[in-house]
């Protein structure tokens, strides 16, 4: 069961704004989905590890020339100044 308060809390954690109306709808839909997926708790038995992958390391050498990607990457940012990405104020006074 997911209620409107849960939706509000999750939305805050996920940095998404939801209106009162959306909270109502989402609480209903998410309750249905959560009910449905609860079936996974019925499964028992031996498990095989899902991932057989290992951490893959590379030699720590031969770095690429510094700054060759900077310009392209800065271009994708909403706002940049010089070699920096500009963001809204993080710490607010109120």
């Amino acid at each position, binding site marked *: 069961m*997911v209620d409107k308060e*849960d*939706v509000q809390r*999750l*939305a805050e*954690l*996920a*940095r*998404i*704004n*939801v209106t009162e109306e959306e909270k109502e709808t*989402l609480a209903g*839909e*998410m309750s*249905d*989905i*959560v009910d*449905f*997926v*609860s*079936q*996974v*708790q*019925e*499964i*028992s*038995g*031996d*498990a*095989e*590890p*899902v*991932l057989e*992958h290992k*951490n*893959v390391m*590379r030699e720590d050498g031969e770095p690429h020339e510094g700054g060759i*990607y900077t310009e*392209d*990457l800065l*271009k*994708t*940012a*909403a*706002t940049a100044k010089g070699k920096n*990405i500009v*963001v*809204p*104020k*993080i*710490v*607010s006074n109120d």
Partner: protein
Amino acid sequence: MINVDDIRAKLLSKELSVEEVVAAASVNAKAKESYGAFLELYDGLEDQITYAQKLIDEKGEDAPMLCGIPIALKDNLLVKGETATAGSQILKGYTCPYDATVVAKLREQGAIFLGRTNMDEFAMGSSTEHSSWQKTLNPVDDTRVPGGSSGGSAAAVGLDIVPIALGSDTGGSIRQPASFCGIVGLKPTYGTVSRYGLMALGSSLDQIGPLTTNVRDAKYLFDAVKGVDIKDATTREGNEVSVSKKMKIGVPRDLMKEGVDPDVLEHFEASLEKLKSEGHEIVDVKFETAKYGIPVYYIVMPAEASANLARYDGVRFGPRVDAKDFNDSFSKTRTEGFGEETRRRILLGTYVLSSGYIDAYYNSAEKARGVMRKELSEIFEDVDVLATPSTAGPAFKFGAKSDPLAMYAQDIFTVPANLTGNPGISVPMGEVERDGVQLPVGIQFIAPHFGEERLFTIASEVTGEEYTK
């Protein structure tokens, strides 16, 4: 339908130039624009065309198989200098700073990138209706969806605009639209194709793969993009899987007892009969955990998606909504940028990962996934491949699956292979009539890890193609 072998023969014999092949595809794409398969046809293909023509002129038969062949790319693959949005407003105007590994490989081999194709936002959906840009119509019946999330790529191939396209498959996003559009779709073994430069949905599930008009082309495209990549630590080499001429095909009939359209089942049984008459053995198998596939998937995928999509904060990519401070701007950007389904899945993922619920949901799902993987590897000790219908029915009408759970049920036959990392292929097995229209439906085969060759072999017997490794 057009195919790679035919186009290649004409390129090699100089009956057609690369420029002519690409021009024909562009004209066709523009003529069929109303289907909405492409979000954009790329400009400035001259360099690629010149490069491919030079390779063909110099190397002839030794030119790479896909040299000079036009290909469509799903909108979640990065092509340096071009736009890519994963179907989302949050990436409006995003210009890719580099090539995805699959794109770099195809570029080197002289394939020509015709354009980027429509998709459900961040690949979340089974009908392409969740694209924030446009609808894509089914090539066979324009009142129906093409499937999804790789609906644009499937439609581009189904409309005969390009012979080959790349899609990505997290829970069926290549195989289901292939089934709906009457074409071939392969989800390779997890780890065979690099995901570097693919916008992530569920990182332990996503795999890039081909959508093509025939099995041989699926093999060509798979061979062209696969391989270990230092930039994707999950790529790996597998042991070769043997391919016998006469296979033992396991059929998990328990899974098909309800919810599958009767005429789809008829075609499925007829395809199995045909394979039996060709000397293959058909046996019933129990795949008991498969029925938990959808609930497991709808925990794991939203969990991974909620983490992957945290990066869309309006700082590093896409437009930003400015507000009084960073957090406010962060939330407003995401609220405006993400569509309804994306927001729903992010919230769901946040829920199943939150401290009070992680054991009940996410950890249980991961455990269940391990049990499923074990059961499936035991099944493959006895049979060569598994067979199921690819989908429970043919393409549905727009708006027919507005309830999220109804849309999620679309993936019943396809999700297990993503959860366990196994390869799966969908090929056309016949047509069923709905409202007086003949609609294609597909049969799916699943093989052990790295058993793609088995899939190509058995699938080509269904389509009646000549196929040799």
